[in-house]
């Protein structure tokens, strides 16, 4: 074994308790960082899923004009064949066409401004998780209600509460149609939603896309196609693939300036995207805080250890150990200390993260309500950490660098030793 490594390990063993304390500190720092990375990754995953899964989807297609500024008349034609061309792409798992309206919903007692989403119930269910949020009644049926009956509507729970309606109750909707006329219709509540997405829960009503097209005079046209992709992280790639396909389709027959655009959620929800990058930057701050403590521990230990071995170093330099080599030996010692601690910490942190990735972490640890809402996403029950090789390897590797840097100064001081007075005991 290399002389430096041998000396490093044996000197650690020689001062067992001091080494255990330092190693413990280093290991704790690494374990904390591993767990933090895995937990924050899991948290961000959940946020992205919460924000995109219920309504947005991972990629959306609009007309260029609508993407610029949404207006009820900025619609485009999209038939089943068009949707199937999109889902034929390997990046796209499912596609849901939508009509997006704003209107006044109410009855004889009260009324509320609401977002109205006209959807294809089957395609919507394939694309988003909204139907899983039904807490009362049911989701929209496969096809629109008989024309003699009121149109089906599913309300977000907050909206249902404000209107004081339940499944079975009737409502009236008024809105501005695409041709500028006033559209109105009779609705019947068939279900109530609670999805964890506050935008949907507080002010959205879902109806059949044909009903929405009729009331808004859209003549079979839609505003939006929401797409589901497998990995939210890769949404920009999927958006690019979709854009290429749209290009090939020649904007679905629209003139150039009214062509279609595909945007990933990172563009559609810039706030969320920003939160993500800020969270990732905050790792840096966390590293700084946690590893500073470990660095001071290593530095102190190495300083003390070198101080105790002054005479030993004096003799070694006297018999021919070059100062530069002594410096190297002591830096390797610090690295050995950091490496043992970092590996232990990586192991412990990895096991804890793995546990939280598998079993999840009960959120009632943080709040007595057992959940909370952040950025329009409700966090409830359990949150799952995300284990990745990178989340374990990075804190370990950073610690090795920190160990070398903290060992450098004590090693430098020790290597400047004057052998003669040191051996004579004059210093």
């Amino acid at each position: 074994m290399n002389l430096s490594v041998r000396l490093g390990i044996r000197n650690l063993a020689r001062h067992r308790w001091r080494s255990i304390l330092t190693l413990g500190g280093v290991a704790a720092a690494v374990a904390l960082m591993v767990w933090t990375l895995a937990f924050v990754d899991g948290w961000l995953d959940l946020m992205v899923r919460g924000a995109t899964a219920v309504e947005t989807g991972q990629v959306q297609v609009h007309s260029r004009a609508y993407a610029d500024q949404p207006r009820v008349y900025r619609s485009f034609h999209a038939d089943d064949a068009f949707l199937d061309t999109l889902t034929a792409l390997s990046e796209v798992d499912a596609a849901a066409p939508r009509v997006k309206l704003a209107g006044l919903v109410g009855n004889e007692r009260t009324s509320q401004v609401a977002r109205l989403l006209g959807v294809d119930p089957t395609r919507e269910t394939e694309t988003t998780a909204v139907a899983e949020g039904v807490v009362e009644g049911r989701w929209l049926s496969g096809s629109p209600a008989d024309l003699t009956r009121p149109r089906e509507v599913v309300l977000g729970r907050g909206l249902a509460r404000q209107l004081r309606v339940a499944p079975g109750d009737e409502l009236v909707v008024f809105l501005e149609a695409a041709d500028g006329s006033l559209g109105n219709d009779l609705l019947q509540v068939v279900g109530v939603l609670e999805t964890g997405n506050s935008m949907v829960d507080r002010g959205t009503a879902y109806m059949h896309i044909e009903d929405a097209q009729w009331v808004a005079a859209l003549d079979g046209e839609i505003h939006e196609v929401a797409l589901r992709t497998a990995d939210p992280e890769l949404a920009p790639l999927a958006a690019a693939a979709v854009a290429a396909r749209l290009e090939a389709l020649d904007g679905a027959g629209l003139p150039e300036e009214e062509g279609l655009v595909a945007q990933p959620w990172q563009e559609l929800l810039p706030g969320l995207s920003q939160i993500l990058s800020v969270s990732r930057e905050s790792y840096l701050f966390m590293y700084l805080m946690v590893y500073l403590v470990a660095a001071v521990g290593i530095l102190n230990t190495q300083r003390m250890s070198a101080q105790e071995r002054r005479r030993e170093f004096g003799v070694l330099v006297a018999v021919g150990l070059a100062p530069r080599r002594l410096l190297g030996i002591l830096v390797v010692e610090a690295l050995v200390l950091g490496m043992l601690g970092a590996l232990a910490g990586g192991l412990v942190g990895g096991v804890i993260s793995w546990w939280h990735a598998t079993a999840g972490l009960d959120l009632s640890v943080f709040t007595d309500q057992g959940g909370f809402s952040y950025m329009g996403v409700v966090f409830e029950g359990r949150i799952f950490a995300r284990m990745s090789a990178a989340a374990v390897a990075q804190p370990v590797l950073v610690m090795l660098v920190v160990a070398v840097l903290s060992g450098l100064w004590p090693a430098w001081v020790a290597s400047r030793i004057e052998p003669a007075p040191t051996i004579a005991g004059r210093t």
Partner: protein
Amino acid sequence: MSEPLIRAEGVTKVFRQGELEVHALRGVDLTVGVGEFSALAGPSGCGKTTLLNLIGALDEPSGGVLSVAGQDVTQLARGDAADFRLDHVGFVFQAYNLVPVLTAYENAEFTLLLRGASREERRTVVEPLLERVGLGGLFERKPHELSGGQQQRVAVVRALATSPSIVLADEPTANLDSTASAGLLDLMLELNQELGTTFLFATHDELVLERAKRVVRMLDGRVDEDIWD
């Protein structure tokens, strides 16, 4: 006559302690030839250790001429001084000679390791030497598991392993009882005769002076008497 191993002419050494100047050496003239078994003697503070350190390039003289093994050692850079010591000088000190966490064998091979000798090369040199000084069977012992005399023997092996031009021993017996001292010194004398290695002691131990072939008595930083056996 060929160039002596050590040639000192008018060597001075002044230590500065704040305002105070300590004249440790006030002009030392001395030559030491190859194969000598000699001792620097004299009262405490007369400059023995200082002179030995200058010869071993552990420190630089303030003035004078000093060459060791044909090399001017008056102005060596730190790294060069370390290399010079590794190539030409073996040291045995009074105490703390060995690395506590290394075994007797590992301590003994340390200088050869620094020279980059292979495991096999180290073994062929160190093993017989350790056997020779009576440490056969104690290779794996740590310094604290050895007696004071045994520790000094390990230091002697480490000093001799690189076949140095000279072994400098500063009070090597000061921490030993008389039996251990006598044993160590007899061994060093035998090695001097067997290997032809030059030994220079700094000591006031009578046991050393009895065995030395030449005693250089110092007084107040100068050579006072130079007595050949």
